[in-house]
């Protein structure tokens, strides 16, 4: 879809609205640089956390001299350290995402751009990983507003390619990723290998996981008729069907069941799940639905 690709992913007016938002993590994560977030890690900040006994080698600047005067014992003052947040955006760029109007991939890119921008302006460490049957492209961690163009440039260059293998891709991501933070998975999750094992890799990393499933309207409400030979765009699998009312009904039932199972799987494991169609304006998705889900505030 060249005309869609030519459009900028985010409108300037929308950017100003996104600036007021920030990514929310339900867990407090460790960062590498001092950021604007509290960390579990004790460090140098203004917010007191606790005391502990002095051991040899501690920084003498953090001794509580008042306590030493009263108790004649050495205690060290501990402060909560403020850190930056890791925000991993996993973008499915398999061929199945190149479907719909706009394509699911374009829609996912817009969502990724919006969330990435929110992360950048809040000095979070934003990482974008594109994957199909493996991790294909990675945007190094970016921080700060100035990195916006890099994010946009990276997203623009992602092209649909290859079949998808969610399990293999997420396994690779979990091995590669050492930090903790938020993981936002943008995919249609139509993987014949299933999603359970793949998601378990992320869950095992104790990341704050958000799964956003994007489907095209043609997949949700198919408008097809006649005797058809369905060709799978990814693996060239052929399914011969004769479209009928009962078949369409059965398809919709299966789709609903698939979504319900995915939702239940995620909920049971503390994973946030959000389903969206490519027909839902992504601005509304970000400003309304993701806010309701607690990803942004």
């Amino acid at each position, binding site marked *: 879809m060249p005309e869609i690709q030519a459009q900028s992913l985010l409108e300037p007016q929308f950017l100003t609205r996104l600036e007021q938002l920030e990514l929310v993590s339900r867990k407090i994560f460790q960062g590498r640089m001092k950021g604007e977030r509290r960390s579990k890690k004790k460090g140098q900040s203004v917010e007191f956390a606790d005391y502990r006994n002095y051991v040899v080698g501690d920084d003498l600047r953090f001794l509580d001299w008042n306590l030493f005067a009263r108790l004649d014992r050495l205690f060290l003052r501990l402060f909560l350290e403020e850190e930056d947040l890791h925000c991993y955006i996993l973008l499915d760029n398999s061929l199945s995402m190149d479907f719909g109007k706009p394509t699911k991939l374009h829609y996912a890119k817009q969502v990724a751009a919006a969330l990435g921008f929110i992360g950048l302006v809040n000095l979070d460490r934003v990482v974008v990983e594109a994957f199909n049957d493996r991790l294909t492209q990675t945007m190094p961690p970016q921080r700060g507003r100035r990195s916006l163009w890099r994010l946009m440039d990276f997203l623009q260059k992602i092209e649909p390619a290859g079949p998808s293998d969610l399990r293999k891709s997420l396994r690779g991501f979990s091995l590669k990723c050492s930090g903790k933070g938020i993981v936002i998975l943008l995919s249609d999750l139509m993987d014949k290998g299933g999603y359970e094992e793949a998601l378990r890799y992320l869950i095992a990393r104790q990341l704050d996981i958000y799964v956003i499933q994007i489907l095209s309207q043609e997949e949700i409400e198919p408008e097809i008729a006649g*005797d058809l030979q*369905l*060709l*799978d765009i990814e693996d060239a699998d052929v399914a011969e069907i004769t479209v009928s009312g009962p078949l369409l009904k059965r398809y919709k039932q299966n789709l609903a069941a698939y979504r319900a199972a995915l939702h239940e799987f995620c909920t049971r494991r503390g994973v946030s799940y959000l389903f969206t169609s490519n027909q839902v304006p992504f601005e509304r998705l970000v400003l309304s639905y993701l806010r309701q889900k607690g990803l942004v505030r």
Partner: protein
Amino acid sequence: MATRPLNPLGTLARVWFPLCLIGLLLLAIPSAILLVLNLLGRETRTNAWLEQALGLSYHLSIPWWAALALFLLPFLIALLYFLKLKRRPLQVPSTFLWRKSVEDLHVNSLFQWLRNNILLLLQILIVLTLIYAVLSLQSHGRARAGRHYILMIDNSASMSAVDVAPSRLEQAKQEAREEIDAHTDDDFGMVIVFSSNAEIRQSYTGDRNLLRQAVADVEPTHRTTRIGEALALADSLANPQRSTEDVASRPANEESGKERTYVPAEGIPTEVHLFSDGRFPDVPDFSLGHLHLQFHSIGQPGPDAVGNVALVTFNAVRDARSPNTLQALATIHNYRTRKVELRVQLDVIVNGNLEKSYDQPPDDQPPLVVSERLVPVAEGGQDEKEESVPQGSPGEASVHFQIPNLDDRADIVLHAHLLGVHDSFPQDDEAWLVAGTLRKARVVIVGKPNKPLSDFFNQEATQKLALVTYLDPGDLTGKQVYREPADLVIFDRCSPQKADDLPLANTLFIDAVPPPWKKEELPKVENPRILAWQAKHPLMEHLSALQDIRVAEAHPFNMKDPRVPPRTPRLLETDKDHALLLALSRQSYVDLVLAFAIIDEDGNWNTNWTQQLSFPVFLHNVLFYLGNLGDAASEETVQPGQLKALRPDIDVRTLEVTDPSGKREILQRGTRPEFLYGKTEHLGVYQVQIEGGPPRSFAVNLLDSDESNLEPRPQFQIGGSVIKPGQEHSQPRELWKWVALGALLLVLLEWVIYNRRIFI
């Protein structure tokens, strides 16, 4: 070791489609065999076997190559279906859910599984039906083109009976329509409608719509039934008369051995379907020849089903002692098999107004009981019973009315109808009678005195009927006095000189001949013997013992004389084709010629006829018939469809007749002495308005015991054949149209199913 229980539904689901497919292919085998046999030229033998074994026949209605292509079509469809060439490829993001859905449906739903294949079955079935349609299967006979059939529909009065709903005629029309449907467009059909006469409503045509329309247009009449004319119409094509064409066109000097071969006209075998209740006289002197008559009996069979009581006679006579009193007599027939109680009401209508009503028996007396119809019980076994013809005799009763104080010259109509009778044929429950008005015939007698003649005309009874003027033969020259309006002119031993001098009236020539005949040219015979006479002629009614007439001298007519018109009635005949009394036609008049004198020129008796009873009766007949006198008691009643002869005064030029429905018709005088009115279709009283004269009436009544007897005749005789109903016959009924219709319905069904699948 446990075995898995068999699921019959699941087994059926698996084998249903292949079983149907195999069944359809098996169904194609007979058509293939028939097609191959046709291609091998064995159609005739195959048809012969099929007709004998199955009552079927076939022929290819399309070229052989088209039939072959059509035959291969189901195999092609099956091949295409299994090759699945028709599926349209469509790219989707993932077949994951689709495959799962299709599998779900296949596993869970028997009907869905079938529906995936039912279009194939329907398409093959459609082609199969088309194949059998083009094989043009026919049942009960061989396919044969150009057969002739005649639908002969009885629309007489009895066919209006409602013993079968809605009426007998409607049932006959329905059966005729079915007969038309049973024939093909290659057959030629004709529609003949008959009652007292017959009419071709549709001549031979292959257009069955025309035949159906002709049948639909048949209307009931009140006429009696005669089948002879209808058979004659049907006969003309089936049994052509031998002609003299061969002899006429054969050259006189034909060389021996080189004679032309003349093929005599051959009759065309024709089916005649007669739709009637059979209430018509047998036609013993008719030969059916090539006509194959099939009788479709209409009406409820059996004597018990007849529910009719009828007036069969209605007459009136003037009281001999009191001419102003009428004696009316009505006869009632009961055709039911049980007694009937009824009364007869007689309305006396004078000049259009109801003057008085009489009931017979009167109200204060018990009703008249008419005995039941006696049905003869056949003796012997069942077979014998079928052969017998149960005619039976209906129960009969008569009623008598005396109507006094009637005006001689008034227009009097008597209307009799049955009360308390609820039968299925109401048309015969009433009758009308018009009392005749007294009118005198104007008679002119030209001749020398003739005492026997003058005695008859001078007697008091004759004076009441005739106004007689006597003229001398000398008056014939110069003054032509008889040119005054007259009904009858009697020339006694004299005649006008020229034919132009003949009067515009009926004449009786006694011992004279009408010009241009000349008495001198006729042979003179002494003591001729009367050997024969025509008793049925109106002039000869009630005459008997004519062989006793002795004549001294006569001038008989030689009937072989070419000047004598053919079919001239020989009223009194002597030997050697010589007539002593004959009725010559002259325009619209009759010249009655008596070839011998009553008294000769000298006043001597020339015959002893005057001393016999038949002489005054003869003169009475002459006065009534040639003098245009009706019965003084009642106007002659006619049956529906019969011609009514109206004989007003000689100078009347036009008449206006108004029928019971109020429709008027003006009649102009033609060349006949009487006016003939033929539109006597309705029962009731017809008014006749004569210019310058008093109005007259006449009545049209059914009064026919054959029509009133509603029991369909079980059989009748035509020529030497006894025709019975219900004899089934073998005739081809084309089935291919029904097969083609089935194919069309299958196409519609396929269309519906296909659309249900496409438009969700």
